[in-house]
């Protein structure tokens, strides 16, 4: 039995925050006329586009007031259900967050998790093919030789070697399908990469803060880990989805 659960991004964990906006009570009959006027003449609700113009209720007093509205748009159903009680908001779940793993992909992920589950190690894969494996190397006296750091270094060394061999030209991403034959594929210019861009990373333990930032710097695509860690980069800082950073990846907490 294997579970693969996506770790929520920073926004999905956001608690409700509100700010006050000016509101005025109107009668229901005026609604369409006033909405029309607002669309044409009033400034846009900049930064709070998710906030709806109208809140329906029954005691009309015709007063201008200040009312709190949610500052951030809701990212989850739970946030939506709670926040809409404060003031009506629209809810458009991000398509990038509605990821369903395809069967073939899932089989590959499970296979990789099987491999790492009993060893403290990190495996990196590209296009559903494992390209590097590394174990924790801190026992040798180097406190920074975590498995993820070692694995990133391996991928880098391979890249240096391939460029030295002179067969490859830098390419942003595959322009055409990869050749079927493994040997041909290895040599094809499409296989070439910028750092670890788009790679899948499988880690026995949740990577620490150093390793998570190393994965951000290396531009990985997805991270799968088995053992959660309170002081890990994902649990402690949501480092897969920090808005301040220039790269994000999808993180999955898995169990076997």
């Amino acid at each position, binding site marked *: 039995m294997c579970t693969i659960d996506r770790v929520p991004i920073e926004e999905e964990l956001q608690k409700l925050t509100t700010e006050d906006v000016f509101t005025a009570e109107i009668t229901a009959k005026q609604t369409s006329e006033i909405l029309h006027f607002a669309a044409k003449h009033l400034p846009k609700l900049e930064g709070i586009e998710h906030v709806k113009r109208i809140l329906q209720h029954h005691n009309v007093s015709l007063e201008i007031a200040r009312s709190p509205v949610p500052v951030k748009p809701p990212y989850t159903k739970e946030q939506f259900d709670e926040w809409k009680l404060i003031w009506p908001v629209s809810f458009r779940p991000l398509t990038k967050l509605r990821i369903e793993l395809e069967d073939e992909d899932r089989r590959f992920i499970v296979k990789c998790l099987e491999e790492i589950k009993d060893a403290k190690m990190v495996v990196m894969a590209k296009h559903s093919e494992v390209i590097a494996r590394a174990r924790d190397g801190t026992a040798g*006296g*180097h*406190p*920074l030789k975590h498995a993820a*750091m070692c694995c*990133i*270094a391996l*991928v*880098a*060394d391979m*890249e*240096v070697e391939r*460029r030295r061999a002179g067969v490859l030209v*830098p390419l*942003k991403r595959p322009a055409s399908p990869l050749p079927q034959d493994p040997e041909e594929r290895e040599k094809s210019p499409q296989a070439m990469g*910028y*750092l*670890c*861009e788009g790679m899948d990373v499988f880690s026995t333990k949740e990577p*620490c*803060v*150093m*390793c998570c*930032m*190393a994965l*951000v*710097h*290396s*531009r990985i695509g997805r991270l799968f880990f088995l053992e959660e860690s309170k*002081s890990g980069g994902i649990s*402690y*800082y949501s*480092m897969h989805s*920090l808005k*301040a*950073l*220039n790269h994000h990846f999808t993180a999955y907490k898995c169990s076997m």
Partner: protein
Amino acid sequence: MFTDSVSQESQDFQGSQECLESQETHAQRLTHMRQALNMAQEALQNNEVPVGCVFIHHPTNKQVSQGRNETNLSKNGTRHAEMVAIDLMIHHLKYTREQFAETDLYVTVEPCIMCAAALRLVGVGRVFFGCGNERFGGCGSVLGVHQAVVDGSEYVAEGGFLKDEAVLLLRQFYIKENTEAPQPRKKANRVLKTEDLNVEDK
């Protein structure tokens, strides 16, 4: 965000006995930072993001290691100046945790989140940096890893040392086209801006 404690310090104590001492420390810090800037300069000459650092053994005031960015050369996005310098200390000097605790880092740019965490793991003494790092900084700009409750030990980090020199080097680099980037940008029309910086020989 970063107190310019350097100039502040020397002004506040002028004329007193304390002043001589703190000015001496201040002068020493600037000397160390100039060494770090030399490393950054070397990075720039090698088409690397110009960040450089030195590690200073505090009790003896001796430089024990140095490093500069080598991410483009190694095709490894984690080969930052600090990581390179730490590797030298561990491999060649067999540096121990106790020795790291007596050793300070001088780095031209605020350590990124990865390096800030690595410095906790090795147990560095103190960290002095030049300019802040709004994109990746791990000692206050993006995250405050140096004072967080994560693996390793806390340390003091202080910025502002020769920061304009550090910024100037970065600008000199980013005005060039980074052909290693996934989508290199054309920058032929860019002009190097220096008016807002307080540096010698602009």
